[in-house]
């Protein structure tokens, strides 16, 4: 098997050239997938996979994606927080690949919160 080949690295470089996600770029929205032990065990990685797949498939280039740890609401995992520019953060709970795709398209891309999946509006930090 060995290391990545020159051809694979060339393909990665070509993909990077087409990307507009430059280092430290500011997106119009940020999606944080909660990736604590509880989130991972509940399907957070599958949610992340679906999110990346949808971003690639729909060609969305100005949404930042990251992860965080456990927010203390383990029974609601998998969870994600969406921060749309100029609006308070919204926590979404009990996510599935289908739900995160809809949240990406409606909230992160267009700024319309998907109320039926939302758990809370407000700060990421639980007190």
């Amino acid at each position, binding site marked *: 098997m060995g290391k990545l080949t020159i051809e694979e690295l060339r393909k990665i*470089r070509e*993909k990077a*050239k087409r990307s507009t996600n430059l*280092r430290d770029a500011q997106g119009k929205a940020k999606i944080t997938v909660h990736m604590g032990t509880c989130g991972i065990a509940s399907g957070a*990685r599958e949610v992340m*996979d679906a999110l990346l797949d949808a971003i690639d498939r729909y060609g969305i280039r100005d949404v930042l*994606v990251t992860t965080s740890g456990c927010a203390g609401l383990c029974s609601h995992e998998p969870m994600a927080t969406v921060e749309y520019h100029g609006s308070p953060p919204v926590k979404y709970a009990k996510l599935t690949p289908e739900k995160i795709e809809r949240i990406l398209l409606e909230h992160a891309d267009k700024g319309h919160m998907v109320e039926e999946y939302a758990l809370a509006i407000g700060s990421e930090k639980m007190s």
Partner: protein
Amino acid sequence: MKELSLHILDIIENSTRAGAKNVEIVIEESRKEDYLVIEIIDDGCGMDDQTLTKVLNPFFTTKDVRRVGIGLSMFRQAALRAGGDLTVRSAPSKGTHVTARFKYAHIDRQPMGDMASTITTVLISNPDLEIVYRHAVDGDQFVFDTRVVRSVLGDVTISSPDVARFICDIIRARQNLD
């Protein structure tokens, strides 16, 4: 956890929260000799002896959002269930080395699962983390090193969703083909 790759993701999340800048993942599978070993080595803040004695206790955590810390203890249970064990070596400011051993053919051994997805998820959340991932199956080894990938990316961050997704597909294709 459904897969070993999810345990690995969980342990690396611990590494990054411990301030690791470098993480090495070494997986060795030997069907002939019936073993599977997973090592996760980081250069995070490490733990003192007192913390180390509690780290496999599911009711011990350094976090303040809840009172349980089940990641490592669940990984250890997965190893014990499959005829193996898990050890943790660590020292303050010297990092942590987690080693999990399994009987390869044990009926209760979880599948390895999607390591490409685990690597991608770590890349997304930790754009500056250097990862070396070595995975040997019956002596045939695959190596992924973020420093090599970074050298061809130019101004684009390795955590760009489209680039990370593309890297994931390449790792996945490699592991499915070989």
